[in-house]
């Protein structure tokens, strides 16, 4: 169905916008609207979601066959797919948020699929809470947009931002969420003096409010797409079944953050600062996550770090596209109206290709785990011979990830780097700031790192002759990270996966099938004889692998398909691509692009060679005992101590505050109440002595009261009022 929509969309070359209905409405014109919108970027996402979704479901048929709770699994998976489709088809931010939270819910549920494992339950919670932090920022950003730009719906786009218009009647995707009606005067946002920014008018003249809104939306995207510093949940999310990791935590849901940035791109095009921050966070994350991938012992976690890193690339590309839009806005005519050109297609292209090769990597990893019953790379090895299809498909994925032509990763990554270079150049020439070059350099280094860690993975898992399972590779001087179990927010962190390889005593090694496989879904024991029996899975799992491998190659040539160009706005297929498409047409060969392409290719090749040198042919590189790099290694293994930081924050600061507040509540606030109560209780205890039970004494008190009453009204009141008078004649 999704495919059909996508194909229709692609062929129609038009936007489909369904009549929306009012979800919540106010008479003052504030309407929250629900509707469907198929846009170019959305169509691309639909392809990704539904193709990967279908393959993963197919794959699950065998992979998950031995698990309990399959109905729940499939129900949650289907809920996820529908919510994800809904997210892609949303036509406004509110609906987007709704679906966004729903996919988050599915992610939560599926990470916690093995709910009996405390680590899985903890990881699920962590994923939800960390993304929730991002969501809160996102909400606030949307509030700002709503109150500044009016309606959250895009049903009636009118005048454009900064002089451009959204296509009349048909929405330009980038206009999603904005109707440029006069700003809501009901807002009372405290404004700063205007900075004469052209777009500031919509924000009441504030120059930093739009930037803030952009940053807040970035916060939401960072939460969902696991960008620094909200990245910590994604590695832990690997507690879920591998299929889920492939679908949700590699191909689709985590990409939703990028998708959000992409559809908001036109907005970032007017907030340079926010755009630069996006580039910075993306570039930094790509390197930062990659470095952690180099040392991670868990096969899925390596791929997870890789995902974070690649998402960083995409974010960087979106940011770069926005920087370019901001510095050199160009317009093109669509249906007679000028539309701001955007370059989000570059990021979306990488998203597209990444979805396939990353899903492929996860699914092959799943096949390996399925076969050998462990996730510890250091217990694998020599699988190439036993699992040829798996090894080759994974190699395809690895090559695509590293960016080796002709695999898809090369084209998309290259394009993305080129765009960043462009942006950096523009920024330095126009504003004199070399900042973007720094980020670009980070990203380029990440190319090397990427190739390094993914081929480390491949070599460790597949090369060599035999498994290392019997002789644990306790090469790491670093002790196993202590699992912070007492903390309420204790993440599952690395305890379950890294403990296996970091045993100090080699004797602690356990037989493979039963050891360390707590995270493996197949632990329920469908595997006879551990990994020695490791072999390629049946066709049900193999077919998705092969299909994905094919797509991992083919996705790179997507822009060549005639008629899909508008799906990827701003994409110029670089180097080879340009030559293929344009050389014949006599266009100039871009030297910079060529250099960039060569550089990234060189870095990737270097990375592969380095990996081969350290880990090729079944070797396991050990750091010397006195190596100064041991400290670095430890830091990386501990993921830069972010988990510890957040756990400490949660446990000691927040929970401590909560306990303190509870104490105050019980003993001060409620204590005051009880004090008052005690006061009355003491008073009544003394009053109780009057209650003798003897009728006469009661009567005496009654009489005292009567007497007081009489005296008051007969003597006191007349004395005050000045005379006592009864009416001369009673009025009967």
């Amino acid at each position: 169905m999704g495919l059909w929509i996508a194909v229709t969309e692609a062929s129609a070359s038009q936007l489909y916008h369904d009549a929306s209905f009012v979800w919540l409405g106010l008479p003052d014109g504030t309407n929250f609207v629900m509707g469907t919108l198929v846009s170019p970027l959305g169509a691309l996402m639909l392809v990704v979601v539904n193709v990967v979704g279908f393959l993963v479901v197919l794959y699950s048929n065998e992979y998950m066959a031995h698990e309990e709770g399959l109905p729940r699994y499939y129900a949650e998976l289907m809920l996820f797919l529908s919510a994800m489709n809904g997210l892609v088809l949303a036509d406004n931010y509110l609906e987007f948020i709704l679906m966004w939270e729903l996919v988050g819910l599915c992610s939560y549920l599926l990470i916690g699929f093995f709910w009996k494992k405390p680590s899985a339950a903890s990881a699920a919670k962590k994923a939800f809470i960390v993304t929730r932090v991002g969501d809160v920022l996102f909400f606030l950003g949307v509030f700002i947009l709503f109150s500044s730009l009016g309606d959250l719906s895009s049903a009636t786009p009118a005048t454009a931002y900064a002089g451009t218009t959204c296509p009349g009647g048909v929405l330009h995707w980038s206009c999603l969420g904005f109707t440029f009606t006069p700003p809501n005067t009901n807002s009372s946002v405290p404004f700063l003096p205007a900075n004469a920014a052209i777009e500031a008018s919509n924000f009441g003249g504030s120059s930093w409010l739009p930037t803030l809104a952009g940053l807040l939306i970035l916060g939401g995207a960072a939460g969902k797409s696991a960008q620094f510093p909200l990245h910590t949940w994604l590695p832990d999310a690997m507690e879920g079944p591998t299929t889920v990791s492939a679908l949700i935590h590699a191909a689709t849901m985590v990409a939703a953050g990028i998708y959000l940035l992409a559809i908001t791109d036109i907005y970032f095009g007017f907030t340079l600062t926010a755009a630069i921050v996006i580039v910075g966070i993306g570039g930094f994350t790509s390197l930062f996550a990659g470095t952690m991938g180099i040392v991670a012992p868990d096969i899925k976690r390596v791929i997870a770090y890789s995902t974070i890193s690649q998402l960083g690339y995409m974010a960087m590309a979106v940011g770069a596209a926005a920087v370019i839009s901001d510095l050199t806005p160009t317009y093109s005519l669509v249906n007679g109206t000028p539309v701001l050109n955007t370059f989000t297609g570059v990021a979306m292209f990488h998203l597209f290709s990444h979805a396939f090769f990353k899903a492929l990597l996860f699914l092959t990893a799943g096949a390996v785990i399925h076969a050998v019953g462990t996730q510890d790379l250091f217990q694998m090895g020599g699988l190439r011979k036993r699992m040829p299809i798996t090894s080759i498909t994974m190699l395809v994925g690895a090559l695509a990830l590293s960016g080796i032509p002709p695999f898809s990763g090369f084209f998309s990554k290259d394009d993305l780097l080129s765009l960043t270079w462009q942006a950096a150049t523009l920024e330095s020439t126009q504003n004199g700031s070399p900042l973007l070059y720094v980020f670009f350099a980070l990203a380029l280094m990440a190319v090397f790192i990427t190739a390094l860690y993914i081929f480390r993975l491949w070599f460790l898992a597949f090369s060599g002759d035999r498994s290392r399972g019997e002789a644990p590779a306790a090469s790491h001087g670093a002790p196993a990270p202590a699992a912070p179990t007492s903390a309420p927010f204790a993440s599952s962190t690395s305890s379950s996966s890294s403990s296996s390889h970091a045993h100090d005593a080699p004797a602690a090694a356990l037989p493979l099938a039963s050891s360390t496989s707590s995270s493996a879904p197949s632990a329920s024991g469908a595997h006879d004889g551990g990994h020695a029996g490791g072999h390629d899975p049946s066709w049900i799992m193999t077919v998705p692998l092969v299909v994905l491998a094919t797509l991992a190659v083919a996705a790179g040539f997507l822009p060549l398909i005639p008629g899909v160009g508008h799906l990827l706005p701003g994409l110029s297929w670089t180097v080879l691509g340009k030559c293929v498409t344009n050389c014949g047409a006599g266009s100039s060969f871009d030297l910079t692009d060529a250099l960039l392409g060569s550089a990234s290719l060189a870095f990737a090749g270097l990375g592969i060679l380095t990996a081969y040198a350290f880990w090729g042919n079944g070797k396991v590189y050990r750091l010397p005992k006195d190596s100064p790099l041991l400290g670095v290694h430890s830091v990386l293994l501990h993921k830069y101590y972010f988990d510890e930081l957040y756990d400490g924050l949660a446990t000691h600061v927040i929970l401590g505050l909560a306990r303190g507040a509870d104490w105050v509540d019980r003993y001060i606030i409620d204590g005051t109440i009880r004090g008052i109560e005690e006061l009355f209780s003491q008073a009544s205890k003394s009053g109780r002595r009057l209650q003798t039970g003897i009728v006469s004494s009661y009567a005496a008190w009654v009489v005292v009261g009567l007497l007081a009453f009489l005296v008051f009204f007969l003597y006191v009141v007349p004395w005050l009022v000045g005379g006592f008078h009864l009416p001369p004649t009673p009025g009967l």
Partner: protein
Amino acid sequence: MTTIPLVDLLSLSGALFALGLFGVLTRRNFILILISVEVIMNAAILNFVAFSLFSPGPAAGGIPGQSIAVILIGLAATEVAVGLAIVLALNRLRGTLNVAEAIQLKL
């Protein structure tokens, strides 16, 4: 039409009321308390009659007060009957007529 002054009637009534009150407050014997209450009742009835006699209106001879007095006399008789029943029950169950010993809200 009567020649007895209102003040005298009211004075008698007040004196009787104080007398009854004195009895209620000081006696511990249930029967005596009952009797004291009757004294107070009579003082009140006398007041009704007296005021009714000295109220100019369509009703001659202080009829409303007399009506109330009639009803009150009936009421007082009933009250005595109930009170004495309580006295009997109390005497049977507790063996005393001293109200100082009947300090619970039950027999």
